[in-house]
């Protein structure tokens, strides 16, 4: 039944775990509304035939719709439409909520190609390699204009924006190759951003992941941190310095001077670009902005470095940096 509808409606294979339920809603909405539309039109046709004009001078009865009938029709339709909305919205919530154990992959859209970066350091262009049967979360940004990450077989789509992260997630049902399209017009090469999602079975995925010999993103992040001067103010071992330590930073609730924030990828990125917006309580607002100085790859590598240090250890003995009073900002080391 599902397959029959799917073929009649020209839908792609149901490649992800959500595709089935989205399609079920699709079939229900289209069937019900088309039956309704047909009924309305059939009534119009019938009336036109049944009440065709036979006498030029004929008068017609002044029929007014009874209020109850109007309210019943309106109320019934409203309930039906809101039911569609309710089911659709619940599905949408699921589409927007990646599971906590999802594998994370960084996606960069640019004119006119897709680039993928894995925490283990692998980088691919135009081929997003993922494991089948496990949830995958994408952390996406654009290098230039708005693009949109669209895999029809998975029934997912998410715009990819410059200056921001957006996320999407999916879990592929079975191994295979699934086309990936850019779905937001982005210029001359919009239709040529060809890419595909390659879903590998468990063993093939392990082999692919292990086969990469590139430096992990976290290791790249360490190089960036040293090169860009981050380590002048941030330690890796839990000691507070001019700024908070990177160890134990990711994932917790940060107490800011004017509120709270959860230290996720967006928080970390914003801290690099707009440090004055989220100053942690007990620290001076002296961090300079790195807007325009770090490219997306370097930012992602730093984020991965900080994520790799998420488990706090006690600081080593013998090294003690005194806390700095917020009222007296010190000169940050270049």
């Amino acid at each position, binding site marked *: 039944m599902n397959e029959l509808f799917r073929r009649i409606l020209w839908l792609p294979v149901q490649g992800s775990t959500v595709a089935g339920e989205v399609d079920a809603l699709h079939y229900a*909405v289209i069937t019900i509304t088309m039956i309704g539309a047909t009924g309305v039109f059939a009534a119009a046709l019938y009336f*036109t035939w049944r009440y065709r004009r036979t006498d030029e001078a004929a008068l017609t009865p002044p029929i007014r719709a009874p209020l109850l009938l109007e309210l019943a029709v309106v109320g019934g339709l409203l309930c039906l439409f809101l039911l569609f909305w309710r089911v659709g919205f619940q599905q949408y919530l699921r589409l927007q909520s990646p599971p906590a154990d999802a594998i994370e992959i960084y996606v960069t859209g640019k004119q006119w190609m897709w680039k993928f970066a894995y925490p283990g350091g692998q980088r691919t262009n135009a081929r997003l390699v993922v494991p089948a049967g496990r949830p995958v979360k994408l952390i996406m940004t654009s290098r230039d204009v708005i693009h949109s990450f669209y895999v029809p077989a998975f029934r997912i789509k998410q715009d990819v924006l410059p*200056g921001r992260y957006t996320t999407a997630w999916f879990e592929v049902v079975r191994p295979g190759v699934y086309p990936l399209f850019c779905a937001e017009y982005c210029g001359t090469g919009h239709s040529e951003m060809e890419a595909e999602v390659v879903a590998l079975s468990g063993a093939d995925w392990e082999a692919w992941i292990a086969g990469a010999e590139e430096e992990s993103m976290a290791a790249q992040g360490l190089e960036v941190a040293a090169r860009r001067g981050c380590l002048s103010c941030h330690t890796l071992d839990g000691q507070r310095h001019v700024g908070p330590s990177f160890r134990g930073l990711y994932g917790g609730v940060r107490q800011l001077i004017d509120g709270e924030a959860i230290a996720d990828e967006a928080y970390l990125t914003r801290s690099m670009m707009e440090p004055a917006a989220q100053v942690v309580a007990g620290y001076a607002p002296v961090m300079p902005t790195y807007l325009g100085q770090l490219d997306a790859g370097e930012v992602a590598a730093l984020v991965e470095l900080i994520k790799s240090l998420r488990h706090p250890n006690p600081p080593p003995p013998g090294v003690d940096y005194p806390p700095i009073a917020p009222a007296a900002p010190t000169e940050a080391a270049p």
Partner: protein
Amino acid sequence: MSSYLGPPTTIRSWLFSTDHKRIGVMFLVATTVMLALGGVLALLLRIEHLTPGPTIMQAATYNRVFTLHGVIMVWLFMIPSIPAAFGNFVLPIMLGARDVAFPRLNLASFWIYVAGSLVTLAGVVASGADTGWTFYVPYAAETFTEVMPILVGVFILGWSTILTGINFIVTTHTLRAEGMRWREVPLFVWALYGTSVIQVLATPVLAMVLLLVAFDHGLGWGFFDPARGGDVVLFQHLFWFYSHPAVYIMILPAMGVVSEVVCTFARKVPLSYVAIAASTFGIAFVGFLTWGHHMFVAGMSIVDAGIFGALSMFVAIFSAIKVFTWVGTLYRGSISFRTPLAYVFVFLFLFVFGGMTGVAVASTSLDVHWHDTYFVVAHFHFIMVGGTLTAWLAALHYWWPKITGRRYAEKWGLVTCTLTFLGFFTTFFPQFLLGNGGMPRRYYLYDETYQALHVLSTAGSWALGSAFAITLVYLAWSLVYGERAEGNPWGSRSYEWLTSSPPPPHNFDGTPVFRHSPYDYHLPPGS
């Protein structure tokens, strides 16, 4: 008996006329030319899509052609098509007035339209924009193509729309014939009133948005440049805040035409006058609250997505009320199936079909799959072409005797109506399937699995284009050889049919006092 057509018949007397009827005719001619231009561009796009690879143009050209097609169709045709042409002609007569409240402003509105159109089209000659009619930033700010003429041209056009809106609202309030109560105002007037409210309130927001893109593109001001702190999603909020109500500017007048044609050809009082009039304002009001449904995957918050989706369902209800009332008006009517009613039937089918796909895309999870694919393209063409254009054709055939004093050949009308429907359906139904299959919109190249549907769609476009061309031919023919029309060829009770066809310069001989409602077909004529 003198007619508004002349004397005088000099070109000067037409171009500088403050007579709402002449202005309406000039708008009709101008917008029809724009429709033909936009239509030719559409035919070119469809020819390009006959093959998956390049067919007749390069990618850069393709992107400019679809941008221009959208700009011309939305702003140079759809928005003024029914209000500025038929509204101008018919509204004052329907109210028993001698003209609109501000006739000189009306003429200004026409010339502003011409100026805006010329500036927009000048951009084509320069090099044409390739941003799509939606001008999304940052692409619109960064593209090297000539966006400025189109931005400025549409900005100018917006003022034409606003002036028309002001004129219609004030005319309805101050120039109704003596004794005409609000319950006797024809439904087409209510439709135009609702449209005018949206025009007056929404168009200025568009003007501002276009200015902001012009500042970003032309002056590098970076309102939406992420490197300078700009937010690209904010642009989308502002753009769609106008552009969603804009689609109601395009459909409400069409619905007004449908109300008039149904009542006239079924010779029946509307099933509920209040329902049609009130739902017009329901659409106008709620239509301002639904813009976010264009942005479900744009990076909007989940809460916003939920609210916009639910409100979009509400707006559909008002349209459903109208459809129910129209069909119920046919019940126990005395129905004559002439060309205008034939077009209304096409409208009923295509608008309801398209409207139901609108309900479907408002179901948020489904829109994730359909957004920015051919499904959406099909959806809005069903409403815009299957709805508004069809109603425009109905209006053209309904008021043709009133405007020109001639009758067209009825047989040709029914034949081209059928061809229009078949051509339209063959063009756009396959696009729903293309969208389901995952083909994104604004794509120059496509995978060959989609080719069969594209070829079918292109064939349909040729049928649709031919139907339109044939229509223009037999209507033009009727201007010279058509039989002369009597004052009220359809036997309608609506007020515009109480004067001659074509009307005299001041619409009525003497000051009219209407002693009946426009839809009292249950009473003997003349009571």
